[in-house]
């Protein structure tokens, strides 16, 4: 009998057929519904799993790699760090406030599931240009949603990025990263390892919201969604209670396994925990605390109601666990048992509604090898500027310099008292006195580079993360990536995806930074117009010792200097082939530079080239200046516009000492000029290439992302 609310679409018939051949019997509708969601792209990574195996995920610090909820690394003193980035693009396109909010909730629970307390969020956001009401509504709604959730759960949003491009019109990307901290003794497996233990559902009650959201995220959002509200509503208040309840349970040693409920709800969490522990589970759906009447078994099994966790506990601890839940006014119920037989059995009272081998559920999805399909795109790319003035005009007319404060002022950036560098300048600093250290965190993307040179962009993202952190005085220890692409069955998308992964994996391995987890989001873009391929990389690092947190700047004079390798020769966007050894050396040199008294700040040169980096400093200090590059930096256009290479911009109080240090260290050094006055001039050794009043930069900084 078909149960209410869950229809098996024709496309899913072949899934049913595969399931039935694996089972050797007819499948129930409930079983078919479970499998059709679990085997969807969103849950099974069918198109990406093979490629993702390229990532090197081991390392002396790595405690948990990809495959579980969040990755976990050792930061010393008996403390671990959990980190992961995730997308919530499709839900945000449909309902931006709740889409973004539930995205933050989802990634927060991923971190929570390791046993960690979440201590920081970062958000990477991609919007269409303002001016179109629908896009402004999306941009504003997404930021409101991030604020709504993050602020209330009491986890600071310490960094992020905002990209505006027509490629994201009507298809915003919302990527959120969460970092958590835990003592080693709190680390929990997201697995059910001991037969006879109880399975407990904790958090919100289960309703009909978001059913089949996972398979929906795997398709085109413009398709008919039916009449049921597909929107999941985030409840940050319950999210906060969930954090506190889980912390109490972990501290008291009451948990032996913990998983979060995300896509495909109970089905996914239970199947994965059973699979990882090489066990099975028998669940009685009649025990699940429901919010709505007359929910069918498939609805209960697949509901994506937010703010729920799945606990595995010793039977004798049940009263204690329920008491903790009650203290925090959270719903909780023992809904089943871990079994030795590796079978996932769902009962509704006395009736068996699903009985599937765990392996079939968790691993049965079809994997596709994209390489057989991939075809390089015919790239239009960006037209190259003929002059620096043209370059500057493009960036001043866009959102490259728009002050991001209009976004992050809405975020609580310092609850928790750990944020020692607030958003606004480079990587965030989050202190962890427990482990005697300070973290540096950043998220980065380079969509246009990814669109034109996918592999190079992949490498460059890793290097940019390293440089971002070096400029913040830190060494990268782990990476987490979120790969946002269009339809992977399109040969060009498949190609750029594979190239991106290849580039990321190569550079991460070469720089010996493990990739500890990530997320793939396909099918982005409305109908025929795909988004730019948008890999986003989250980089986690530790600040080196001896670097001052605050540099006192007496109202003395400041100079800018370029430190590092020369720019690429030729095409300003042709990145030089990466020299990984040089990158490491440069990062170390920059970290040393930051300890010296004449250094005020260092920023890496990335998107927008030297021009962008200099303009950012001009805005920061509210000063212009006459800045010129030297001949050994390449011709003027190259020197100012090139976006690659291991280059850093130094702000210094003493250019002579800085130059001496560079000579002694054998680091290329080019004094650009002094920050002064209200006119801006960029020149090469011969002539001025571009001039503008500082006020023009300020106008560009005032540009709004909406309204």
């Amino acid at each position, binding site marked *: 009998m078909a149960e209410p609310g869950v229809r098996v679409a024709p496309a899913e018939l072949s899934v049913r057929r595969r399931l039935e051949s694996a089972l050797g019997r007819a499948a129930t509708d409930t079983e078919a519904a479970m499998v059709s969601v679990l085997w969807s792209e969103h849950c099974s990574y069918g198109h990406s799993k093979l490629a993702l195996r390229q990532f090197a995920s081991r390392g002396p610090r790595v405690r948990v790699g990809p495959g579980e909820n969040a990755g976990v690394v050792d930061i010393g003193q008996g403390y671990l760090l959990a980190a992961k980035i995730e997308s919530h693009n499709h839900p945000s396109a449909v309902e931006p406030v709740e889409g973004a909010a539930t995205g933050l909730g989802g990634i927060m629970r991923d971190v929570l599931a390791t046993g960690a307390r979440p201590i920081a969020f970062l958000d990477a956001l991609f919007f269409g240009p303002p001016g179109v009401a629908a896009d402004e509504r999306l941009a504003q709604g997404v930021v*409101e949603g991030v*604020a709504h959730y993050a*602020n*209330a*759960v*009491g986890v600071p949003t310490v960094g992020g990025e905002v990209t505006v491009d027509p490629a994201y019109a009507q298809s915003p990307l919302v990527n959120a990263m969460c970092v958590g901290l835990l003592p080693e003794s709190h680390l929990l497996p997201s697995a059910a390892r001991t037969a006879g233990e109880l399975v407990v559902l904790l958090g919100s009650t289960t309703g009909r919201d978001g059913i089949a959201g996972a398979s929906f995220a795997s398709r085109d959002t413009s398709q008919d969604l039916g009449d049921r509200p597909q929107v999941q509503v985030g*409840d*940050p*208040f319950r999210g*906060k*209670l969930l954090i506190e309840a889980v912390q109490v349970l972990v501290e008291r040693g009451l948990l032996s396994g913990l998983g979060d409920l995300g896509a495909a709800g109970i089905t996914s969490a239970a199947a994965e925990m059973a699979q990882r522990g090489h066990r099975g589970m028998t669940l009685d759906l009649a025990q699940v605390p429901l919010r709505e009447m007359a929910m069918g078994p498939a609805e209960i099994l697949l509901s994506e109601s937010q703010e729920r966790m799945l606990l595995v506990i010793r039977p004798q601890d049940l009263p204690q666990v329920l008491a903790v839940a009650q*203290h*925090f*006014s959270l719903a909780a119920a023992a809904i089943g048992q871990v079994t030795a037989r590796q079978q996932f059995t769902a009962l509704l009272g006395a009736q068996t509604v699903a009985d599937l081998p765990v392996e079939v559920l968790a691993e049965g999805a079809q994997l596709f090898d994209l390489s057989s399909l991939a075809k390089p795109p015919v790239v239009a790319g960006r037209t190259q500027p003929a002059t620096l003035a043209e370059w500057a005009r493009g960036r001043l007319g866009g959102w490259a310099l728009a002050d991001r404060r209009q976004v*992050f*002022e*809405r*975020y*609580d*950036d*310092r*609850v*928790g*008292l750990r*944020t*020692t560098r607030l958003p606004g300048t480079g990587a965030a600093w989050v202190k962890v006195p427990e482990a005697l250290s300070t973290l540096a965190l950043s998220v980065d993307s380079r969509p246009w580079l990814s669109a034109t040179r996918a592999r190079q962009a992949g490498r460059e993202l890793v290097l940019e993360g390293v440089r971002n952190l070096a400029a913040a005085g830190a060494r990268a220890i782990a990476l987490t990536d979120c790969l946002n692409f269009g339809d992977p069955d399109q040969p060009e998308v498949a190609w750029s995806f594979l190239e991106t992964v290849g580039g990321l994996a190569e550079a991460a391995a070469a720089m010996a930074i493990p990739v500890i987890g990530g997320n793939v989001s396909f099918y982005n873009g409305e109908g025929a117009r795909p988004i730019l391929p948008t890999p986003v990389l989250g980089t986690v690092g530790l600040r080196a010792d001896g670097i001052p*947190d605050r540099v006192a700047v007496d109202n003395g004079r400041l100079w800018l200097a370029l430190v590092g390798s020369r720019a690429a020769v030729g095409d300003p966007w042709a990145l030089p082939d990466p020299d990984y050894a040089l990158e490491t050396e440069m990062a170390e040199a920059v970290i040393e530079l930051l300890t010296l008294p004449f250094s005020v700040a260092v920023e890496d040169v990335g998107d927008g080239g030297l021009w962008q980096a200099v303009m950012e400093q001009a805005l920061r200090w509210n000063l212009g200046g006459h800045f010129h590059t030297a001949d050994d930096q390449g011709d003027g256009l190259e020197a100012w516009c090139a976006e690659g290479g291991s280059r850093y911009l130094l702000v210094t109080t003493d250019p002579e000492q800085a130059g001496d240090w560079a000579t002694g260290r054998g680091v290329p050094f080019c004094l650009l000029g002094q920050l002064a006055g209200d006119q801006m001039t960029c020149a090469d050794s011969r002539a001025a290439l571009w001039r503008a009043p500082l006020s023009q930069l300020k106008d560009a900084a005032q540009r709004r992302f909406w309204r």
Partner: protein
Amino acid sequence: MSRKAVVIVFPGSNCDQDVAAAFAAATGQQAELVWHTEFSAHQAPLAILPGGFSYGDYLRAGAIAARSPALDALREHHRRGGLVLGICNGFQILTEAGLLPGAFARNHCLHFLSQDVSLRVEANDSPFLADFACGEVIDLPIAHAEGAYQPDQSHPDSDGRVALRYCNQDGAVSAAANPNGAIGNVAGLLDQTGRIFGLMPHPERNADPALGSGHGGRLFRSALQAVSHLG
């Protein structure tokens, strides 16, 4: 009663641990966290209502927490001579409970704002502000979405006394220095006894000089001095 301060934790409070840690670091005295249902009048001379989103700030910020039995205990605590400090959401709870006059509307910009602000000390005849001079300008961070203070117009003479106003760095109280639309730039308020103090800014967020001005630490030390002879 040797304990000097308790922090009353409501479901959804999220600055409770911060304020306890900052208080301890600034004063050398522990501030103990107490779940709201467990708070009673005689636990410590100073009771702190922390910032955050009690009950999700659903309905109105602080409205639901203000109906907690803890507020009856807090009234009793005050009657017995105890001190009450409400920070941000704690301040909102105090107005919702009628312990301080007025109410809070949404920020005029209609969104949450996290930023540093300057404040002018308007009254210092309170234990919380004894260490500050009238007219002194201090810096503290704000972080709230509902901070537009509204006086109670039907009881214009109800007994609140303004203790802090948003101002510019030179101490001028102006519309330009008003981050949220609070009537009269009100940022902090005392009751008539001077023993209940509510403020929207977060003293715990820069009590540690590594995180900013350190002015929040002075506020805690001033409060501690006032209660050091008690308990």
